[in-house]
């Protein structure tokens, strides 16, 4: 077994800062005993001299426009859980650890043809989500974790290599309890190698059996089972925007992070998203909601981001946005849709689907339509706009008539006994009688003609066979 430890040293800060690119100084503070103290400054704040452990007052003296945010452990946990679901794209065995994740990596190593490419992919993926990580690949979970936290070595091929690297690690970087560290220091030990060389029986008497078990697990001499993270059935990602975002296009920076997170979640489940529900939270309710509907389930992030970009261009924000929430309630299993062609005789390269997706994202699904014949003789009911690419009605309803129909018939003037529109209309064809619909109460009895205006416009007109025998304009030819 090989384990990849992912340690997120800046998680408490990044959950706030990853939504917008900002150049203003910012720091997360933690209350412990005395007043609030700086836990993590962002790079602009660090440039001004802010350091972890500094009191909030001292920090403010260094940076006038400093923004201080209280640490939020609940959000950190939620962010880690979302990350764990994302990491399932790499392996089915993900475990949560404090400020990090543990991934069983044997399968991924084969897939990525070696540890370097694998670690590179994980690092790049985390970067896209807005997290910096320290990674360590080792044959034991505990070894990988301790070395990742210490930032000491990245790839341990086997137990022997792990032991060698650990031996060089300063004891204070191993993350021991303070009293254990103190006792070992008083014994004159500085490097972990010294601890590893001590007889276990003595260590057990001094520090307890648990400590020795931990040491055995660190070195791979005792099994170390880990609880496996259970991903939720649906995706729900939240992203706080540190500074309020006014332009819809600027939301893409943060929204992209959520889509990438969703993509990992979907790939891990071998599923795709068909409907992405977005909520943009403003200072005052109600939030702006919109749905990005896709024609086929997608799991890859880039096509979704491309569609989202189009969609965001069409959105007008009533107020600045403080938070973005993305929900996908029903991920669609991808396997079950394989082989099920959405479009009859569709393009093999998928360019037709991509065109539809782009158009729908920007214009809205209701503006991207197909045209279908309906089995009805009444012109008002013989044509319907349907989703594009649908099969036409079965044979027997093939019609005739003009390519254009008015939304409702327009009455025509009658002059000297002839229908008139900018001049007398010349009837070009014999009539076509349509009598239909007596069974559903919308019955029609009409004689249709092709007529031509003096300027040469060809029209489709009819005369009612009942009532006042009124003439109407109903369609226009090509």
């Amino acid at each position, binding site marked *: 077994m090989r384990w990849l430890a992912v340690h997120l040293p800046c998680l408490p800060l990044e959950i706030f800062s990853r939504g917008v690119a900002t150049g203003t100084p910012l720091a997360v503070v933690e209350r412990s005993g005395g007043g609030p103290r700086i836990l993590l400054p962002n790079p602009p704040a660090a440039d001004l001299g802010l350091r972890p452990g500094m009191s909030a007052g001292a920090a403010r003296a260094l940076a006038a426009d400093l923004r201080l945010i209280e640490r939020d452990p609940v959000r950190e946990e939620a962010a880690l859980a979302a990350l764990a679901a994302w990491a399932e794209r790499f392996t089915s065995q993900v475990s949560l650890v404090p400020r990090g994740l543990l991934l069983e990596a044997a399968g991924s190593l084969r897939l990525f043809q070696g540890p370097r490419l694998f670690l590179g992919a994980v690092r790049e993926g985390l970067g896209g989500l807005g997290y910096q990580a320290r990674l360590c690949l080792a044959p034991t979970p505990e070894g990988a974790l301790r070395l990742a936290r210490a930032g000491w070595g990245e790839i341990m091929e086997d137990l022997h290599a792990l032991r060698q690297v650990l031996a060089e690690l300063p004891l204070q970087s191993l993350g021991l309890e303070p009293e254990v560290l103190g006792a070992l220091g008083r014994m004159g030990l500085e490097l972990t190698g010294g601890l590893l060389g001590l007889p276990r029986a003595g260590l057990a008497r001094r520090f307890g059996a648990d400590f020795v078990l931990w040491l055995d697990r660190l070195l791979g001499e005792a099994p170390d089972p880990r609880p496996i993270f259970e991903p939720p059935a649906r995706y729900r990602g939240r992203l706080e925007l540190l500074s309020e975002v006014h332009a819809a296009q600027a939301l893409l920076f943060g929204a992209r992070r959520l889509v990438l997170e969703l993509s990992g979640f979907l790939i891990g489940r071998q599923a795709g998203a068909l409907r992405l529900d977005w909520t943009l939270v403003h200072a005052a309710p109600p939030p702006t909601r919109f749905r990005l509907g896709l024609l086929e389930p997608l799991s890859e992030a880039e096509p979704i981001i491309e569609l989202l970009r189009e969609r965001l261009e069409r959105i007008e924000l009533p107020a600045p946005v403080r938070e973005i929430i993305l929900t996908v309630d029903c991920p669609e299993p991808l396997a079950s849709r394989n082989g099920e062609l959405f479009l*009859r*005789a*569709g*393009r093999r*390269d998928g*360019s*037709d689907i*991509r*065109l*539809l997706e*782009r*158009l729908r994202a*920007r*214009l809205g699904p*209701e*503006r*991207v*339509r*197909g*045209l*279908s*014949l*309906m089995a009805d*003789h009444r*012109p008002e009911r*013989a*044509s*319907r*706009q349907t989703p*594009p*690419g*649908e*099969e*036409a009605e079965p*044979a*027997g309803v*093939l*019609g*005739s*008539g*003009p*390519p*254009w*129909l*008015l*939304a409702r018939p327009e009455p025509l003037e009658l002059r000297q006994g002839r229908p008139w529109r900018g001049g007398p209309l010349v009837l070009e064809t014999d009539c*076509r009688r349509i009598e239909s619909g007596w069974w559903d109460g919308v019955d029609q009895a009409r004689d249709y003609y092709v007529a*031509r*205006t003096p300027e*040469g*416009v*060809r*029209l489709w007109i009819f005369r009612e066979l009942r009532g006042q025998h009124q003439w109407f304009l109903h*369609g*226009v*030819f*090509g």
Partner: protein
Amino acid sequence: MTSLDQLISGRADLWRGRSPSPSAGDGIPSGFADLDALLSDGGWPRGALVEILAGGPGRGGLELILPALARLSRGSRWVALVAPPLDPYAPGWAGAGLDLSRLLLIHAPDGREGLWALEQALRSGACSAVLGWPGRMEMRSLRRLQLAAEAGQATGFLFRPEVAQVEPSPAPLRLRVAVRPGGLEVRILKCRGAWSPGPLLLDSPKVSSVLRQALAGVAPAQAARP
């Protein structure tokens, strides 16, 4: 070495005065033999804009291209209508021989979005023909559409007002159409590699015979309703 000929031969937006038309016969048959004989590609050009100046629906512009659209709709690509001026009536299009399942209607809230959709459809490679009814257009926009049509190998039929005749255009083919008592009068205003001999009258019976042929080939059992 790349010769000048190679550089310019693939471009539909370059009008070569005395072109030997190496691509002759490559066009989409219009369904009117008399018209095909005058067009340098032997039909509607592929991957290019065709401007039809007719002055509104009902004046023959669409009727002129329906036979070609019927043929194209039998392929795997879309025939797209971008922001049509009126509601399309399915029996009319089916009656002209179109496979409706390949017809794509794109409605646009305004002219700007319509132009965007036109360009997307032309460029996508997913459409064999794209029909647009843009209003006034700048040369720059027309050029963009022409390049998009080349990139996506789509024929872009633009229905434009008659006044556009005096404006310059990168479209390699421009014609005027009018309905006359005898049929359609077509006047070729500009055709890459060919010279217009004056107006051409395509008579109406011919139009319907073309449609009948199209229908006969497609759905022999289906006749027009009484």
